């Protein structure tokens, strides 16, 4: 278990931070969040070609950088801090992770290099309208199509159903879709499929998201041809670890945002005067800031521990994935709310940047399961804890 970052990792973090400071200032964030596309293609290109970030945890054999989950989490923490608007979480944290864990060797060779180079925008379509993130609630069906030749049955399926809350689903080139074999229920009969976004019978619509820096789409499949990813009916086994890794990734992104809220609150407390003194000189504001530090540092420790467990494939990963996500959910939301409160009225205005983080925190709080769900999982999974 790695409790501190190596010098190389710290250096890497600095490089990523400098890139974010340079390419994702709040003016850019505000511009991109108002655009339908939601990201800047030129910045995406630099981030891909210059830094190789989309392939950060993709093995070299598949065109990636060959780093581990810790490095991925460093990148996400910095992106969360800068509120970067880019299809990174969808392509790298969700889609690439899914392919790495569920795809066949052939499929990895075929699909991962495109994601690693930043050329393929990909995402995972799991959740359905008014449902939670549990794969067992999947209703979208996959039936073998007529030209599915018995022995080579990987290829041809037809999808029917609807997915919602699909991150960057409106721009993704490649969708990884969770669907079930007709007649099955629960965790049985679940499989992953790949679908190019221009497939027939596929319709997508950009949703109005509370957090405009994270674009979400609704996607409908009507007799849409799809290719099986990995083995048929194995989703019940492959999806839980993929979702654990996604939760760890999200927790890292969230602690980056929470850290920014702490820093922003501290800056303002040392700038704003009321009653002839800095508001940071009032004990109640000091206590708030101290409590924020406590929350943020504790949340970071859980995110770092979980990233390390993910990198090592540690047996307690399921427990600590939920632990870190629950911690991050509470901490990010609380930090954003306190930062807003310390700003007073100005914090409630559109012009002030706090609300951008507040909305990211609110949306991330429920994305991939809220704190109540993950706390429950922490207890249920506790036996696996080393």
């Amino acid at each position: 278990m790695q409790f501190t970052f190596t010098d190389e990792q710290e250096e890497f973090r600095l490089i990523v931070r400098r890139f974010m400071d340079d390419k994702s200032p709040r003016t850019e964030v505000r511009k991109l969040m108002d655009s339908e596309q939601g990201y800047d293609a030129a910045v995406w290109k630099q981030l891909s070609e210059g830094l190789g970030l989309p392939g950060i945890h993709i093995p070299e054999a598949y065109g990636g950088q060959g780093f581990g989950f810790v490095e991925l989490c460093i990148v996400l923490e910095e992106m969360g801090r800068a509120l970067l608007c880019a299809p990174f979480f969808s392509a790298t944290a969700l889609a690439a992770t899914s392919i790495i864990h569920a795809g066949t060797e052939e499929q990895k060779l075929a699909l991962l290099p495109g994601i690693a180079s930043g050329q393929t925008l990909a995402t995972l379509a799991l959740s359905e309208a008014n449902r939670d993130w549990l794969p067992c609630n999947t209703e979208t069906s996959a039936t073998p199509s007529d030209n599915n030749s018995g022995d080579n049955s990987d290829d041809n399926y037809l999808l029917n159903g609807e997915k919602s809350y699909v991150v960057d689903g409106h721009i993704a080139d490649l969708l990884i879709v969770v669907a079930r074999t007709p007649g099955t229920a629960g965790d049985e009969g679940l499989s992953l499929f790949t679908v190019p976004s221009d497939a027939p019978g596929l319709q997508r619509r950009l949703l109005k998201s509370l957090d405009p820096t994270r674009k979400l789409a609704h996607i409908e499949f009507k007799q849409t041809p799809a290719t099986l990813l990995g083995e048929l009916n194995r989703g019940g086994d492959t999806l839980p670890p993929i979702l654990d890794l996604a939760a760890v990734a999200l927790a890292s992104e969230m602690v980056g945002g929470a850290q920014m809220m702490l820093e922003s609150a501290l800056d303002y407390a040392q700038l704003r005067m009321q009653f002839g003194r800095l508001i940071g000189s009032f004990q109640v504001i000091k206590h708030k800031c101290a409590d924020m530090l406590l929350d943020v540092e504790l949340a970071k420790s859980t995110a770092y521990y979980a990233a390390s467990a993910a990198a090592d494939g540690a047996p307690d990963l399921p427990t600590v994935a939920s632990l870190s996500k629950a911690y991050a959910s509470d901490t990010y939301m609380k930090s954003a709310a306190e930062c807003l409160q310390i700003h007073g009225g100005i914090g409630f205005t559109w012009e002030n940047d706090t609300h951008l983080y507040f909305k990211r925190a609110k949306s991330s709080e429920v994305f991939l399961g809220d704190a109540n769900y993950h706390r429950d999982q922490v207890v249920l999974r506790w036996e696996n804890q080393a």
Partner: protein
Amino acid sequence: MSEQTVESTEQSLRTDVRTWVEANWNPDASLLEWRNKLIDSGWGCSSWPEEWHGRGLSIGLSEAVDDELRKAGAVGVAKAGARMLAAATILEHGDDFHKDKFLRHLLTGEDTWCQLFSEPGSGSDLAGLTTRADFDGENWVLNGQKVWTTSAHHAQYGIVLARTNWDVPKHQGITYFLMNMEQAGVEVRPLQQMNGHASFNEIFFTDAKIAPELMLGEEGKGWKVAMTTLAHERRLVDGIRSWGRGAKGQGRIYDELKAEIANVMEPYKWYPQRAGRVDLLIERAKATGKYDDPAVRQSIAKVLMMAKAAEWTGRRVKAAQALGRPPGPEGSLGKLAGSQVARLAAQAHTLIAGHDAMLTEEDGALNGIISEVLISTPAESIAGGTDEIQRNIIAERSLGLPKEPRTDVDRPFRDVPRNTVS
């Protein structure tokens, strides 16, 4: 007064109101015509003094009068918004010229008012305001900036605090004015909030003019006058809540009233969401199936319990007030309780909405009402005095704890460190 006398006074009062309304109410009259009649009768704002459109009744009894008007379907005087703050302050500190010039038009709804107190540099520390008024021999000349002003874009008049003396301690250099908003030196810009609404404005004064007779109270004594205004702020919120009632009916007057309400209420349409929409919790939980989750039910229960406890505390305060008892410490808690209820309600709504908390507007839960709750409740602990300031007030005034040492009141305001923003 014994409880029995209070009751019998109220009964005969209600009969008087009913008789008068039966004889005079006409839904086909114009709103202006009717309101003038109502003002002349003294029933429109019966707690006001007899010489100024009222009947000198207690708050409790005047509420009974309003209740009778409402029951009869009769439209009341214009009561919402900053106009009531202006009215209360003019009644207490104004001279006959002020009362004569402003009160009637304010009650008929012909004049809209706004409150120009908060500034970018001074919110919690209202007395630290830096908008300046200088006398040029003929008029007071106003320069500076105000913020969080509701309705300023269609207001004819404003109540405004400005600094007229920088060489005395902060509270002693402030003067209270009534000002004409429709003049060249006043620029009004909408201020957008994080929930997308723009209910407020920023106001910029560049050599705006105020005639000397529009000073309310004395020069440099504006702080005391402002205290009257602030004391009425809480009742303002109740006024807004009841404003929309009684607008249902057929006839010219109802149409005119509906138009007025639509205009006046526009900035307040997100206010129910800001308070947390506790009323929707159970209904939403049932609709989403989260009602079956015991953890969610615990969250909902906490909100419902606190909301009820706060409501009953408010009722206790009112009941004691009606009997003329001195106010106890419980009277200062409503605001703080309200912001905690709002915060807990937003948490419970998040749990109930699940994923849908990621969506907004027409894609969001209840057509965006729930997402509006999630991004409006933070206002509750800031607007009208922050939670931190409320706690200071409760601790020092209600509980009698030692006051925080102050370094800003013992010297000329000129020498007090302050923000550079304004």
